[in-house]
């Protein structure tokens, strides 16, 4: 509707207009200009109204921000896990844990035998002693390991299949190797990756479902906020309709109000997600370092932030539209 003083004083281009004859009829060009002017007035007026109540507006932004940040944050986390697992994806590796009684010599002999096979690219022998040593330095479990009187680890041969891309052949090879009498257990390292992948898929769907619910929640919150705004300006709406304001004219400032709430909420969400990632960055890289990984936490990025703000704005418009469609038609001059 009409802007209050400071908004109404906005600069506008002068429009040539004949006086007299065409009095209350405006031609389409003028109408278009008028339409633009009113958009500008509505946008500014709605913004002023939002900023006039900084506390309640900030609450609305925060609520929307949290609702948007939750699924976004989870999604970013999943992205990071996906990135992490992708770097381990290939080559597939089969770990052969040998029987307890197998000697070092016999194990070395087996390693050579395996390395000679056509379907095996590489076979690497890790003796029990080496494994123990590695364990000691890597994980800081030194005290625990020292308290054991015998080495609990078996000999290990790490086998890289020649055709690492084909999962089925790797699985067949694993079964074949497990049948060796000296082999206690053969583990295809891709198994946990596959499990991780299906876990990730499950999580992704959960995030989607939670995200969907939260989006509906955001729409309802916005719808309700706009409904209250409409309610508090009921008399004004009636008067505007009485002096010839169209539904579009009456609707416009409320749509802008929804837009501003949504955009603000999206901005809050982007800030929340970025802040959480920043908070986690240091411990994550420390953890990664302890696993000798170069892994770095991947953030939201400029595009991700922009997308959040755009999504917020669209939700704001949609929520406002729902409220406006429901409540504005009801308000008729009496």
């Amino acid at each position, binding site marked *: *509707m*009409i*802007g*209050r*003083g400071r908004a*109404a*004083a*906005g*600069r*506008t*281009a*002068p*429009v040539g*207009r004949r006086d007299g004859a065409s*009095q*209350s009829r*405006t031609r389409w060009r*003028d*109408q278009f*200009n*008028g*339409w633009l*002017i*009113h958009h500008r*007035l509505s946008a500014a007026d709605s913004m002023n109204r939002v900023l006039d109540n900084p506390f309640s507006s900030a609450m609305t932004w925060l609520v929307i921000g949290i609702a948007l940040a939750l699924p976004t944050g989870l999604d970013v986390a999943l992205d990071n896990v996906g990135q992490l697992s992708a770097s381990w994806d290939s080559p597939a590796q089969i770990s052969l844990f040998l029987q307890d009684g197998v000697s070092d010599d016999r194990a070395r002999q087996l390693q050579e035998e395996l390395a000679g096979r056509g379907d095996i690219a590489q076979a690497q022998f890790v003796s029990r002693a080496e494994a123990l040593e590695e364990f000691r330095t890597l994980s800081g479990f030194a005290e625990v390991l020292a308290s054991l009187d015998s080495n609990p680890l078996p000999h290990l041969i790490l086998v890289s299949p020649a055709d690492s891309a084909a999962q089925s052949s790797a699985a067949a090879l694993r079964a074949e190797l497990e049948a060796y009498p000296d082999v206690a257990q053969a583990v295809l390292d891709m198994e946990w990756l596959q499990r991780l992948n299906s876990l990730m898929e499950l999580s992704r769907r959960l995030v989607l479902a939670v995200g969907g619910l939260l989006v509906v929640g955001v729409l309802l919150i916005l719808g309700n906020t706009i409904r209250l705004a409409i309610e508090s300006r009921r*008399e*004004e709406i*009636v*008067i*505007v*309709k*009485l*002096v*010839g*304001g*169209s*539904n579009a*004219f009456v609707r416009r400032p409320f749509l802008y109000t929804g837009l501003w709430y949504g955009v603000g909420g999206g901005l809050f969400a982007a800030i929340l997600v970025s802040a959480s990632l920043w908070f986690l960055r240091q411990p994550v890289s420390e953890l990664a370092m302890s696993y000798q990984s170069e892994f770095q936490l991947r953030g939201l990025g400029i595009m991700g932030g922009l997308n959040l703000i755009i999504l917020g704005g669209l939700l704001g418009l949609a929520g406002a539209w729902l409220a406006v469609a429901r409540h504005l038609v009801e308000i008729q*001059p*009496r």
Partner: protein
Amino acid sequence: MISFDRVSKRYAEGHDALREVSVNIGRDELVFITGHSGAGKTTLLRMIMLMERPSRGQVMVDGQNLAAIGPRGIPRHRRNIGVVFQNHRLLLDRTVFDNVALPLIIAGYDHREVGRRVRAALDKVGLLDRERAMPVTLSGGEQQRVGIARAVVGRPKILLADEPTGNLDPALSAEIMQLFEEFNQVGVTVLIASHDLALISRLHHRIITLRHGRLVAGSAA
């Protein structure tokens, strides 16, 4: 300009506010509508601006049959009619200037034109120095004049006024009636509902009298 052809209005409760009213009002006329309280004056005005639809009969305004105007056409129709309401109906949180500017903003005028026209209208009703005031700080008569300025600022073809002098002293009432006469003289069709028989019979214009929804006098010029 305005014609009612056997128009009846029955409200949902079964009360007949207007019965078989037929009347013609010419383009250059100023016409008073009078009658006891509840006679149907307000109902008749509300029909012209499509706040109410007839139960039977036909209303024509400026050559257009109002029955042909759907809900989407109502805003455009109202923009051609200036209305002064019985209870002012001003926006209480806006200045006098913003209140008067409302029809122009709706019509999409740019702000220079708005400023020019609003000041001209306020000047006409003698409130030019109050443009920054809030309506609540004005007297009843001043608020009524703000309402008049808002009604005429868009230069409508038709001006409707419902009890525009309802609670004003006689001198101010006469002044306001004179204002309406001036608008009429520049070609605006003016329709005024009023109880104040003493005042309106002194002015020499047609008087339409309603009684219990029936038109009892003034159907022809």
